[in-house]
């Protein structure tokens, strides 16, 4: 759970007749993982600490979950850390950028994730950077990995994250004059209700559904 949820169905406004209305499920939060991290993750963290003296200041959390290492980085420090990971720790490749929108995380609603790959050492690590909806700026990494160009444009297009320093931050998938950013959670899916044999099925986003 990324946020608290109550009830079983998406029923709002009308009375909940399911009997599950009082059910409340609480959000789980992933705290920082304690050492030892296991696998090659300790080695990555050690190397990074050695190569980057500001490690403890720049990296807010280290999460090891499901066999994957995620470094949560302060957005002001992202470019520095990325450069060190590329040059000193041999993470030559960034496999792209993935955005996620968590409307409940006040002040850190928009998240950008960078899966890095080291072909030299056959390792992977993920960088996670969060920013506020009110100030959706994250430094661009196109200077570090040129291949991030289109990926950052996609995250801008879909989530409205502005990558400072990007050489040409324009929409890439949606039309240039489109309003809004479709992958945000407050952006509706749309769709039209379908009538079949007299019964009407609402569009997917308007359906009552299990949560």
């Amino acid at each position, binding site marked *: *759970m*990324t*946020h608290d*949820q109550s009830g079983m169905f998406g029923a709002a406004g009308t009375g909940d007749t399911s009997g599950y209305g009082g059910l409340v*499920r609480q959000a*789980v939060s*992933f705290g920082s993982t304690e050492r030892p991290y296991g696998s090659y993750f300790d080695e990555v963290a050690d190397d990074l600490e050695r190569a980057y003296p500001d490690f403890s200041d720049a990296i807010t959390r280290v999460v090891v*979950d*499901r*066999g*994957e290492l*995620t470094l949560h980085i302060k957005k002001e420090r992202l470019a520095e850390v990325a450069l060190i990971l590329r040059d000193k720790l041999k993470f*030559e*490749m*960034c*496999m*792209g950028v*993935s*955005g*996620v*929108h968590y409307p409940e995380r006040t002040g850190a609603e928009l998240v950008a*994730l960078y*899966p890095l*790959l080291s*072909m030299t050492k*056959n390792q*992977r690590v*993920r960088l996670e950077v969060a920013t506020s909806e009110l100030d959706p700026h994250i430094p661009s990494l196109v200077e570090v*990995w*040129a*291949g*991030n*160009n*289109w*990926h950052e444009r*996609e995250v801008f297009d*879909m989530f409205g994250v502005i990558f400072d320093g990007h050489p040409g931050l324009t*929409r*890439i*998938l*949606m*039309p240039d004059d489109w309003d809004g950013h*479709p*992958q945000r959670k407050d952006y509706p*899916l749309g769709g039209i209700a379908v009538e079949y044999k007299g019964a009407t099925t609402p569009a*997917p*986003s308007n359906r009552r*559904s*299990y*949560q």
Partner: protein
Amino acid sequence: MTTFDPYASSRETTEGTVFSVTGGDWDSLVSEIGESKEERIIVNMGPQHPSTHGVLRLVLELEGETVTEVRTGIGYLHTGIEKNIEFRNWTQAVTFVTRMDYLAPIFNETAYCLAVEKLLGITNDVPERASVIRVLMMELNRISSHMVALGTGALELGAMGPMFFAFREREAVLDAFEEISGLRMNMAYVRPGGVSQDLPPGMNLKLRELVKTLRKNFKDNATLLIGNTIWMKRTEGIGYLDLAGCTTLGITGPVLRSTGLPWDLRKMQPYCGYENYEFDVVTADTADVYGRFLCRMNELEQSLRIIEQAIDKLDKLEGQPVMVADKKIAWPAQLALGADGLGNSLDHIRQIMGTSMESLIHHFKLVTEGFRVPAGQAYAAVESPRGELAAHVVSDGGTRPYRVHFREPSFNNLQSISAMSEGGMVADIVGAVASIDPVMGGVDR
């Protein structure tokens, strides 16, 4: 020039003369352009152009026949699959992701399912037979995808014969897909926890026959193209991109392997039990269109080797399950062949309707509500025919994905078209695009 040509008319704008070429009459265009002193012209290639692999738009700046700048316009096939998935349950999402890169549906499904299984923590519970079937299907799919890449690539460079051979082979593979899953493309065959159904009886023998036929038939295209003077002139030294370029642009797959680096996730970070198969990683050292063509050509034989080993394994695993044992995750449908085709097993329906109310409730809950996936995020990558295809899946603990993002190799690799083509001839762009083998369904999602 004053005669009006409806297919090649010109008009004056503030930026200069704009010539529209929509039909076929180049003569009037050439004579018209010949009057102007400007050598630099900007040409829109696509989005409806036979050699752009779908709806890709290239804006070319030309000095004579030399390309000085290539800009790429994509998004014409954007279907919002990633957004749609957020409103479907975890199993339904398979039907959506399979439609992203429509030439490699099994890879999309497998990447997604591996990520969901990672989130569920059942990676090691997936039955061996299911993993072997996944490998078998992926390698068959690699062949059918490479066949399109080779056939259309050759056609775009003016060779028609290879297309006929390539699509003959592809048909044979698609027939096998149809027999196994019921569908030729977009099968939604791989599901979280395993695959949707077991192979039909007698399939192993048919697959062995298929491998034999394919191995024989692949020689036709090899004879036509490898060493062919015209083919070599159109591909050698064209679309050059070296290892440093590939690394900074995040390029994987045959384009990366054509620079000589044997990077293949099947070997380096095995999944679905690829570590138990013997095969070689194919490379070339020319870093050009010809090298990529050779890589794809030689990968076909490696795929056949893997398929043969997979069939051997399937012989040994006959009768084993193809879905996780956990009934809270496994899709409850028992499929059977009826008079009107494949559908729910009537015996199974009769049993749950007539004798077990709990089974009926369970079936109903799982189909309407779906299963819950513990909160967290996972990234699972597979080696698709075009490079690293990965699914980044986020769960909030509910019955529907919170966010699914696909790291599409086509999307990423298409960025390199500028680096490959600028400074070259305009005719070589076609070869460079074909060598990247972008599938616009995957690029735009």
